[in-house]
């Protein structure tokens, strides 16, 4: 395995593993659409970072925070409903990102921003992925019980003294951080695969959220490594190969008879 492949594999195991664990809650809270919107909506941040020559992570983080805030705000408006509010917010952001990316003096990196480049991962990206696993993993461990109570029965969780709105906001924040880190490898269009593929693959086969998170992380890591290897052997685009293997894992998990592990 070359150094480039090793870095790509490490990146996909670390960031992908965290996303695979987080994805269980993303699905439980029915935030897959919000996640897709967030990853697309961070495009202006990515483009601005590319224009300024700043690290993509910085642009992704800024774009994700701005997009998460806008989506959360729009989705809370009961007059239009969460789906419509999110659609309006994200369409505006994608429009803005495209406007910037297609300007005559923009650098030719739009393809990389949209589809990712795991083989272009640098040391800084690996540090960011490691930090995500440590800090995000700690946050997920701490939030596990409130997340379970809220996902299972929001009204009952409120009566237990929890704040379901805040729990959901914390989950959105974690999702934004995860997408900001993972977008380097999979791009704004494909990064959702690592958030929803693993939980779809394992959801029907686990008995509790802890098992779902562990199994999701495992599926993401294995699918990530398989995707990188497939890319190396077949000469296909690395990001797209990883995304396709993740989606294949999701399809397989959904088709297999349910088994309850954990």
């Amino acid at each position, binding site marked *: 395995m070359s150094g480039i492949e090793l870095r790509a594999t490490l990146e996909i195991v670390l960031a992908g593993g965290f996303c695979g664990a987080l994805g269980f809650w993303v699905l439980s809270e029915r935030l897959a659409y919000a996640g897709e919107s967030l990853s697309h909506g961070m495009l202006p941040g990515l483009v601005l970072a590319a224009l300024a020559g700043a690290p993509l992570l910085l642009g992704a983080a800024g774009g994700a925070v701005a997009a998460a805030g806008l989506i959360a705000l729009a989705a809370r408006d009961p007059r239009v409903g969460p789906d419509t509010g999110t659609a309006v917010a994200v369409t505006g952001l994608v429009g803005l990102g495209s406007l910037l990316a297609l300007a005559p003096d923009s650098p030719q990196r739009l393809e990389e921003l949209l589809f990712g480049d795991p083989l272009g991962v640098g040391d800084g990206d690996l540090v960011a992925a490691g930090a995500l696993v440590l800090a995000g993993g700690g946050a997920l461990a701490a939030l596990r019980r*409130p997340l379970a109570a809220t996902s299972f029965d929001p*009204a*009952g969780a409120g*009566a237990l003294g929890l704040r379901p709105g805040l729990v959901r906001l914390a989950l959105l924040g974690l999702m934004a951080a995860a997408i900001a880190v993972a977008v380097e490898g999979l791009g704004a269009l494909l990064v959702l695969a690592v958030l929803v593929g693993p939980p779809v693959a394992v959801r029907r086969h686990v*008995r509790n*959220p802890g098992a779902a998170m562990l199994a999701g992380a495992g599926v993401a890591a294995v699918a990530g490594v398989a995707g990188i290897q497939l890319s190396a052997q077949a000469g296909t685009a690395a990001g797209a190969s990883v995304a396709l293997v993740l989606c294949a894992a999701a399809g397989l998990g959904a088709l297999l008879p349910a088994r309850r592990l954990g």
Partner: protein
Amino acid sequence: MTAAVTAEGLSAGYGGRPVLHDVSFAAAPGLTVCVLGPNGGGKTTLFRALMGELEPLAGRVALSDRPAYVAQTERTRLDFPVSAFDVALMGGLANGRWWLPPRRSDRTAARAALERVGLAAEGDTPFGELSGGQRQRALLARALVQDSAVLLLDEPLAGVDPASAQLIDAIFEQLREEGRTLLVSSHDVEGARGFDVVLCLNRRQVAFGPPAEALDRATIEATYGRELIVLEQPGAARAVTIQHHEHDHGKQ
């Protein structure tokens, strides 16, 4: 004696529009209150206001303790991977320390609560695989672990098998004897006669008082309107309500 639950001139609703008007009552500790009303009559809205989930649009509510809430089972996620024991254990979150794993005392309380509701053998069973009555009892176990002085139960006997209903009734009686205040929403006019008091709602407060006084024919008709059928029987009229599958809490 200080009331456990008080509402004074309460109006509550959604998006600034009230769906429940002018509710005033006080329930002492140890009182069982049956909250009667049609779908859309404001029962769930009242509970949401009592839980602090809805800010009153007018008036105020006061409770002696943070209430435990038992939702209708169809409002829980049946596909969420938790066991009956996990659900009961959630009651321990009311003690704070949500960021830490459950304590041994929380686990002991959850096991005791499951035993109390007759689910000791079903602790490991996924919640979604329990029967309707068992699910309701698992939610009741969560409320028991919360150990609140006030319990709000949203139609706990709807669609429940007779054995579960009998067990739940017996637990209600035990809770009353422990001095806890129970507000139980229901469509069952005849069943309401077994409670200490009834609170009749139809987008406003129609009546509040002991069933023998409050549940006269005029009150029942004002509460249920077109959802009511009164069966004339020798000696007494028996009210039967027709339930439609809609809920006031979703109204905007």
